[in-house]
């Protein structure tokens, strides 16, 4: 049986996407790294500014992943759905 077409990207691409997404989640999930008040950024304890910076960072990581997964799919729906029909 043919592999679903959506999985047709290189393992390197999938690996990169996985690492980026795991890093994004881990930064928020691993609470001990930011549950502290120092160093402060102006009046803001570390606990706050770390999380506030992590928000746009996560957005950027998701965007990179989107670009990575999109690039091989320039043909749009055709290449995406071809796998199912070919099998």
């Amino acid at each position: 049986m043919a592999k679903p077409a959506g999985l047709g990207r290189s393992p390197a691409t999938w690996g990169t996407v996985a690492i980026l997404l795991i890093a994004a989640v881990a930064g928020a999930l691993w609470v001990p790294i930011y549950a502290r008040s120092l160093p402060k950024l102006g009046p803001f304890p570390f606990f706050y500014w770390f999380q506030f910076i992590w928000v746009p960072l996560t957005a950027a990581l998701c965007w990179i992943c989107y670009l990575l997964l999109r690039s091989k799919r320039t043909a749009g729906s055709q290449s995406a759905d071809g796998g199912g029909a070919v099998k």
Partner: protein
Amino acid sequence: MTHLNAVTLFIVSAALVIVTYIGFASARWRPAEDPMQLNEWGLGGRGFGTFVSWFLLGGDIYTAYAFIAVPALVYATGAAGFYALSYTIMVYPIAFVFAPRLWSVARARGYVSPGEFVRGRYGSQGLGLAVAVTGILATMPYIALQLVGIESVLTVLGIGGTSGNAFVRDLPLTIAFAVLAVYTYLAGLRAPALIAFVKDTLVYVTVIVAIIYIPGKLGGWAHIFGTASTQLNTVNPATGKPHGSIVLLPAGEWAYATLALGSALALFVYPHTTTGVFAAKRRNVIRRNMAMLPAYSLVLGLIALFGYMARAVPAVNAGVKAGGGNAQLSVPLLFAHMFPSWFAGVADAAILVGALVPAAIMSIAAANLFTRTIYKELLKPDATPAQETRMARLASLVMKIGALGFALELNRTFSINLQLLGGVWILQTFPAIVISLYTRWFHRAALIIGWAVAMVYGTVQAYRTPGGGQAHFGASTAPVFGHVTYIAIAALVLNLVVAAVLTLVFRLVGLQDGYDATKPSDYVADPVTLPVAAGPSARRRAAGQTAGGQTEGAAAGKAGPTAGLARESGPAPAPRIPD
């Protein structure tokens, strides 16, 4: 706090009138060729691009209740309330992984709710029903809580709320909700999608102004954090411990992490969120939005800081105390005391409209679930698309009346308890919905039993948790093996263990498995939605095909526009398998 401010009231009323106009006008936005298809009323024709989806999902996820409750939690406990920010950080990378697959299979098979997907994936009515019932149960109190958000604003505005006459007291809320019910009935998902533009504009304006304007008036951030820290460190006479702290203590870290993770996993299996996902036009719209929605998380984080600002305003502290220690009043009171009355009106309108959008989407989502998984599956299997749509409209009305009843008849605490339970419950559908996108390794019967065990465990555990002056449902976290853990996560682990063990047992004894109505290619399908349908004859043809039991969706997705339409017009009925 009960004085009525004419300017504020005028601005709020004007916003509500504009929103009502948009709500009714939205019925004519991107008109459907055949409005009596469920995916027209219930999913806005599955035609929303990146931009509209961003507003719709943002309007859907960041509810008025969150805007009231998150700062209220921060006001009351400090840093622990910030788990909401952590949760909205990790939710998008997680959803990035599975939401596109969920969209694809729904699009390819014509599913409008997650219940149908599970039913089709496992050939199990029981499992589909479990998912649908859980979704509806979890959504009802969530709608009711939007009303609690509205009530907080009305109380501070001095209308409703405080009157001795029950009829007068409930009238503003009832009117607001009745109007919402009517335009949702008529326009379906198009109404909240358009109103979301107004909501989010109001929210962004309010938050940006507040974050620039208020700290200056209060003597700067250093003073705000200092005051909050001092007040939170005072001992709470009820518990004999400090109220909280502005930096999370080591003892609270596990609870913080599990609350954030559990909420993040649960968010995209909530019916109102899947509805927003299913309404997208293309698969890439979902991924793009996962990178764009964090903009709202930033706003939520800033709103959470309002809790500390409120601490620094003595009049707000007095108002909260006068309201019976109700921290939910802190943000509306902050607006009332800090802003000139016209801008307080804008801010209050943001919360009011922010309640109407999710309430509409939630009632539509619950109606879609009911119609496809209960009505069509159990009550009237031969329902036509028009009958489905009529049923869904009716169900959305019933859902709102029920929520209004909840909000008016039962006390606020009960709604909040149920919402807490809703979060625990909805996460128990995660294995059936999300894990099933990747594997059918679990046996359908094992999944049902795992779900049932976890539902009972979660409910009992929540019931037995005291806190906040209540004997039951006092908190969403409880000690599990010595760690204070989000109950939903503990229940999910139990759910998975039971399901895994029973799967092995059932396979060993050779218990029959269900038929899988989906194909591997469905999960990566990305069919194009045509803005204008090929013509009424194509619709009829499509309807004929599905009625005739055409199940294999002819080279799903590959065949282009016509096949896309055929599948869009109605779901391919799953073959009936001995259940």
